[in-house]
């Protein structure tokens, strides 16, 4: 695992950005009430990871991380579709997409 100089010292910068994105996504997921926004936050987290993967792949300049990124995107898309359909189904039932309405199951 030899370090490629193309990206060099600014590796930390990219990593910081992706950490930041991930954290923002996580905090958003914790705090926001709107399901759609929640979905977006989680997508944000995934993309943060994608960024990190790409960074590393250029750092090690081997490509499989970038392949992984494609997979992740596909997965993210799949999740998004399922997620959205679930949200719609939920909306049909409770007429709301505020997740705090969904607390019948507890204890």
């Amino acid at each position: 695992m030899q370090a490629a100089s193309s990206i060099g010292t600014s590796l930390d910068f990219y990593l910081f950005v992706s950490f930041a994105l991930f954290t923002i996504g996580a905090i958003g997921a914790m705090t926001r009430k709107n399901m759609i926004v929640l979905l977006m936050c989680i997508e944000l987290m995934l993309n943060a990871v994608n960024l990190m993967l790409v960074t590393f792949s250029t750092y090690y300049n081997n490509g499989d991380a970038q392949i992984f990124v494609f997979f992740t995107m596909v997965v993210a898309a799949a999740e998004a579709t399922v997620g959205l359909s679930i949200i719609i189904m939920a909306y049909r039932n409770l007429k709301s997409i505020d997740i705090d309405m969904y607390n019948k199951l507890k204890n």
Partner: protein
Amino acid sequence: MDSIIILFIAGLIGLFAGMSKKPVASILIASFGLIGAGLAAYYRGSYTSPFSSYAAYVPTQGLVIILLCAVTLLAILAGFKRYKSDDEHTGDYLGLILFSLCGAILMAQPNDLMLFFIGLEILSIPIYVLVGIDKGSSASAEAAVKYFFTGSFASAIILFGIALLYGATGSFQLVEIQSNLAIGIWQSPMAMIGSLFLLAGFTFKIGAVPFHFWGPDVYDGASNAVLMYMATVVKIAGVYALVNVFGQVFRDSYFFWIDLVSLLIVVSMFYGYITAWKQTSFRRLIAYSSIANAGLMLFALADIHNSNLFLFVAAYALATIALVAVNSVINDDSDALANWEGIAWKNPLIGIALVLALFSLSGIPPLAGFFGKFSLLWSAVPHVPYTAMLALIASVIGAFVYLRLLLLALKKPSVTVRIKLSLEQIIVLVVTSVASIGAIYFI
């Protein structure tokens, strides 16, 4: 590999057969698919597979696949009554289950984190759908929502962990990662935190504290039929993946994470069993008991070289399926424990199955549960004696929970109305009972 293909094809056929509104046809197809997959796994190597070239990417150990297929078979059989009830969706049920089973097999013994992640998602996404499959009920909807968001959140965490590991080692191949870590890189923060994030993801999948929250609500909202699959296959796949990843990749950093694992074990077991005590809904009780059992499963990490996991997960899965099957026999939506009163008297088979399942879960010899627990502890005790001690104390509380359920079921009712069991239910109960006794073979 062949098993996956077979399952996938069976799933597809089942999916379309479902449109013919002939539930029996689709269940038969699914069953044959599962049996075929099991056989394929069993005879693996004794014949030249057309897909042998891929075997390198999907190394599948026969035993686990057989277990997964068998459990799934039992689950769909026990749930068949439910599928029949809305016959335009029978196909969807079976198809989705088979697809997610493919994912389970894929992720159970990864040798590449990329494939592992894909398997994970293939396992999870169909279940998101299955949980929310009956569109009418708000509980189902809520369960689906919660499961989906927590689940995708967890996969983000896992992904993050994978990325960090990649950053530390520059590869997704477990072998390479291990060899890189072995030369001391595991002490780098990135690897350590990466491993911990991975652990967190697994913990979520098998539903141990502190990533257990989805469990009770989702189990509660989902239908018995789905629950049977979810409570067993997901856990089995998850814990096997965990053991394989940590056993292969992180064995050098054993002393770094084992204390954390012990902590998780103890907390999960106490939390799960104690909380189960006050439950009034059966499915929630099962959920909490499964949290505790997830804690027990983590013992497999204590001795990474030979983790005798199989017996325990098998026993756990069989007992759980038996219980949920009985619960689905009662079949009412309130799902209150009160309905269990005197059920053992309404049908001798139910009675026997219940006694065996519950004693097995509480780990009384000579039932499967005991041997599972024993083989787990057998390898664990030398490494984490005090954790084992605490775990045993916790399992006494667990016995409390199960026996309370048993006493409820055994209470002699004033008037007994016989319950008629359908063929597939009889099969399921008989199989689980026989299996829980048959474990004597392993002595």
